[in-house]
């Protein structure tokens, strides 16, 4: 029996009708990307600012006051407590009331004026390294600039800016370190994986569970027709999701879009197909909808954790990077970030496009073989 467009069309049509009847799932396909965009875009921030800081000052001079002011002006620190003793400050840090404790020792101003290079102690609660990392980096520059206004004239030579070690930070592509620029494009990959894999994984399992599979198998329809027919409608859904996130990225988060949107659409198609093949393959393995759901979640976790969406890809050990390299979402994230933030073209994108294509072909071949033609 050869493939028939009429039969394939019948399956596609049926899937579309069923999709439109399932109002809740249909609403979720649009609402999920939007909700996640807002949730993750605003909630996840690897560059937290206004971190609570306690200042214990044993030296109250114009100089130290301006130092504290400069600290606050950096945006990273917010002086919320001014304990009288160091012990009290330590306690606040210990219980987590503040993230940082700045101690200005007695005689700081005098020592500075004499050119003795006095020490300031900044204790950080580094339990969450990402939370403190950027703030600590900022303090390096602070020393150089904060006291520049105060140390004029005869004291100019004492300006710490002349110190041999000045922190230099270069952040390319996202100079302000805005997490949303990184998270929002990444969301396209995660949201697509989530809906594409889950929705299609349920597809064949639903037919099994509702008993409609027996009827489908009794009719002259090919496994490939059923699989492709189930996949096709979700390509449309996937594009709607990409559009929702891109619009949100532009209007809510002002994420730069330097590269070609046409190229992005093309790569999205490749990624959507890769995700769908995984879903349909799960679907043909699972005996019921619960199993299909479990498999999707099991697949989803590495997609979020090992793809470079949540955590820096280069921070992972080699074996974890190897797993990440297999996942289509890893490559898609690099493509999306590359096109949007770096203005990548086809030449750069190609290196990440072909692994997704290979992945789809291998998985679809596995899935079509698994698809049962009988009830055995």
């Amino acid at each position, binding site marked *: 029996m050869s493939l028939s467009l009429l*039969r394939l069309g019948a399956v596609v049509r049926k899937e579309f009708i069923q999709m439109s009847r399932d109002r809740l799932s249909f609403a979720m396909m649009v609402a999920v990307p939007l909700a996640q965009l807002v949730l993750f875009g605003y909630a996840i921030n690897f560059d937290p600012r206004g971190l609570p800081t306690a200042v214990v000052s044993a030296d109250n001079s114009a100089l130290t006051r301006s130092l504290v002011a400069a600290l606050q002006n950096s945006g990273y620190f917010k002086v919320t407590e001014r304990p009288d003793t160091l012990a009290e400050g330590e306690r606040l840090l210990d219980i987590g009331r503040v993230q940082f404790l700045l101690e200005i020792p007695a005689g700081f101003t005098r020592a500075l004026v004499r050119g003795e290079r006095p020490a300031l102690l900044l204790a950080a609660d580094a339990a969450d390294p990402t939370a403190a990392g950027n703030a600590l980096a900022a303090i390096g520059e602070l020393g150089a600039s904060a006291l520049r206004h105060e140390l004029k004239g005869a004291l100019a030579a004492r300006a710490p800016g002349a110190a041999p070690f000045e922190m230099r930070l270069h952040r390319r592509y996202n100079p302000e370190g805005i997490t949303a620029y990184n998270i929002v494009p990444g969301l396209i990959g995660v949201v697509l994986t989530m809906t594409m894999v889950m929705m299609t994984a349920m597809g064949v399992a639903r037919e099994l569970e509702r008993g409609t599979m027996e009827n489908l198998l009794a009719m002259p329809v090919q496994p490939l027709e059923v699989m492709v027919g189930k996949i096709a409608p979700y390509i449309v859904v996937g594009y709607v999701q990409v559009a929702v996130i891109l619009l949100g990225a532009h209007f809510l988060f002002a994420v730069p879009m330097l590269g070609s949107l046409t190229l992005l659409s093309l790569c999205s198609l490749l990624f959507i197909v890769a995700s769908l093949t995984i879903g349909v393959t799960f679907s043909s393995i699972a005996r019921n909808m619960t199993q299909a759901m479990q498999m999707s979640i099991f697949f989803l976790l590495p997609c979020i954790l090992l793809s470079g969406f949540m955590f820096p890809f280069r921070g992972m050990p080699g074996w974890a990077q190897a797993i990440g390299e297999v996942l289509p979402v890893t490559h898609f994230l690099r493509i999306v970030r590359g096109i949007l933030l770096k203005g990548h073209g086809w030449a750069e994108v190609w290196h990440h496009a072909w692994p997704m294509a290979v992945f789809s072909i291998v998985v679809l071949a596995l899935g079509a073989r698994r698809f049962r033609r009988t009830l055995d």
Partner: protein
Amino acid sequence: MTGAVIEVEGLSKSFGGKRAVNGLSMSVRAGEIFGFLGPNGSGKTTSIRMMCGLLTPDGGRGTTLGHDILSGRDAIKRQVGYMTQRFSYYEDLSIRENLEFVVRLYEMDRRAQRVDAALERLGLVSRQKQLAGSLSGGWKQRLALAASLLHEPRLLLLDEPTAGVDPGARREFWEELHRLAAEGITVLVSTHYMDEAARCHRLAYIAYGNLLAQGTPDELVARFERDPGFEAHGGVSRLEDIFIHLMKRSQGAEA
């Protein structure tokens, strides 16, 4: 066409070491309504599924409409109408959409006309836009029958089509089956209602995967009425008493 429409010999199937069908041999002749009787779990559904190519038998062989049940699956699927025990059309599709889906899968021509004709015949024209899931048991069964007839099959396999259907709808359903048989369609129908058994041309009793007896209702009554140990219980029909008698006898043989 004369002769056997279904011919199986020594058909066996086990699930997880449990024998569901044990060396079943039987034949169904062209144009007859063949009743397949047996208690729940006796192997009726498994047998029917093997006959229409949905299950691979462990042993034995057979043909359906002249096609081998192993190698001729695709051909069997095109020519057989199969009505599953459980309603297996899409509840979230309307009556019309379900029928349209089926005619497309069979690649029929004049599709809209065929769907219209089926709706007309069913008396469902006014309710064609209703979702299949909202239909009552009797209407679902009529829809399933109509859908399984869309591709003009020469053989209908009906697996307990009247389970959970009220007596009035059941009577109408059987009248429809006789009309179809008169048109030349062969019907194999499984049931455990004895009044339905009496309306079949020929019957096969099956229990615990074994064929117990085969013949016309009259033949079966004549053959087993005088069996030693046969008791008339005054059931709905003589056939029921014979059915119970055969069951007891096979249980005795097993023990």
